[in-house]
């Protein structure tokens, strides 16, 4: 579960005040809002890259306000994917697991499963250079999910993609939702994405978050029962 209670923060002349939102466990939340409305800032606050001046952030009931980003266990896919240029795709997917001292065999198995799920097996030996926009997003997704986080944050993953690639990424994101049961918060300005992916749709307007509704009305219980399929 992702839960923000009256979170405020200031960054230069820009500020967010009293943001409150909830994404239930295992649900796919979509946060909509116009450009520069502060959507990215909210994601950065959740994963700990930006400190908040007041309020409370809880992930799965645990208060994380004072925790370092490394300890929060949040998978983050930034807008430009931020693929590390100096290492191969395989290496950067392995990295979060190596940091946690996973056994070699477990790391290898995990990389194979993620590569299969996101259709990036053929990219594992490549470097960032020459990857297409869609490939970069899927690699970043595999990297963010590799250590089995319970919370996944995505920052406009579709924004720079053409229609075909976008369709492919929809497939990948649906696979993630079905197979991992991770609680996701997906930021976008596209109503289409929200309609296709969102269990919970939120809208950020004038510094306030409002729940729009849930078009699928997918029973949350069933999502949770599918969950843990790939969970570490």
């Amino acid at each position, binding site marked *: 579960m992702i839960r923000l209670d009256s979170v405020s923060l200031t960054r230069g002349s820009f500020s967010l005040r009293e943001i409150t939102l909830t994404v239930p466990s295992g649900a796919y939340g979509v946060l909509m809002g116009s450009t520069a409305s502060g959507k990215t800032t909210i994601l950065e606050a959740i994963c700990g890259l930006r400190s908040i001046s007041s309020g409370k952030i809880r992930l799965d009931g645990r208060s994380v306000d004072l925790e370092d*980003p*490394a300890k929060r266990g949040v998978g*983050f896919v930034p807008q430009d994917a*931020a693929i590390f240029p100096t290492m191969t795709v395989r290496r950067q997917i392995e990295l*979060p697991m190596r940091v946690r001292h996973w056994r070699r065999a477990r790391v290898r198995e995990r990389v194979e499963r993620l590569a299969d799920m996101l259709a990036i097996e053929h990219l594992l030996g490549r*470097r960032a250079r020459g990857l297409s926009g869609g490939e970069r997003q899927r690699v970043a997704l595999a990297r*963010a999910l590799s250590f089995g986080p319970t919370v996944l944050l995505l920052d406009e993953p579709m924004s720079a993609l053409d229609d075909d690639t976008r369709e492919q990424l929809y497939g990948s994101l649906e696979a993630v939702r079905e197979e991992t049961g991770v609680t996701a918060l997906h930021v976008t300005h596209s109503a289409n994405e929200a309609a296709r992916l969102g269990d919970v749709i939120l809208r950020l307007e004038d510094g306030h978050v409002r729940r729009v509704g849930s078009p699928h009305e997918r029973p949350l219980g069933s999502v949770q029962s599918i969950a843990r399929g790939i969970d570490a």
Partner: protein
Amino acid sequence: MTLSRPRDGLFHLSIMSLALAYALLVLLLLGAMALRTDLASISSILSDQAIRRATLLSLTTSTLSMVIALWIAVPTAYLLSRYEFFGRRLVDALVDVPIALPPLVVGLGLLILFRTPAGAFFESRLFAVSYEIPAIVLAQVVVATAFAIRTMRATFDQIDPRHEDVARTLGMSRGRAFRTITLPEARKGVVAAGTIAWARSLGEFGPILVFAGATRMKTEVLPTTIYLELSTGELGRAMGVAVLMVALALAALIVAKLCGATGVSR
């Protein structure tokens, strides 16, 4: 990019002629030096014991100074590039000062520093610096570090901090993210900073003359040799040593280019 489009002809002509003019100037300068050098003086300097030792001392001190300069410059430049803190502007300005100071002033400052009570205490308790080999290294490090910081600063400014942010969300501490993500990305910059630090150290003269002296067989480095030979009218030998230095510098620049080329380009 190729230089073919006719519309851009004037532009290409002007940038090419400026580049060629400068390259030609450097070439002419080297050629003029070669004209003043004869084989006899080259062979006489190569067999001279004092000059052989000066060469060894020059290479050893410049390399050590380069390593020290990088160990200071990389963290300092990273700090200045990534963090906001009280006094940052002041530190930023201070680390540029050795670039602007006249070389003699750097040497004089160091000499005076080691005559202060603190400096004298250091020399009496630990080891002598003024007029000894440590003075050469210290004088080189002071100047080389300033240039290395400039280069590394530009490098870190160009590297997207987002990569480190993401690495931190993946479970890495700041230190580990720096080592595994940022430093490898900065590889070319590190090679460039190392090259400039080494070259500056090899060619440094003024501060060394004042702070380390020009003692034969003791604190004599190659620029000192040139000065000593020139000061006794041995123009031919001075030019011979100069040619030797040019050869060393070229060799080092080629090695650096090869190191940089094997790095990952972004």
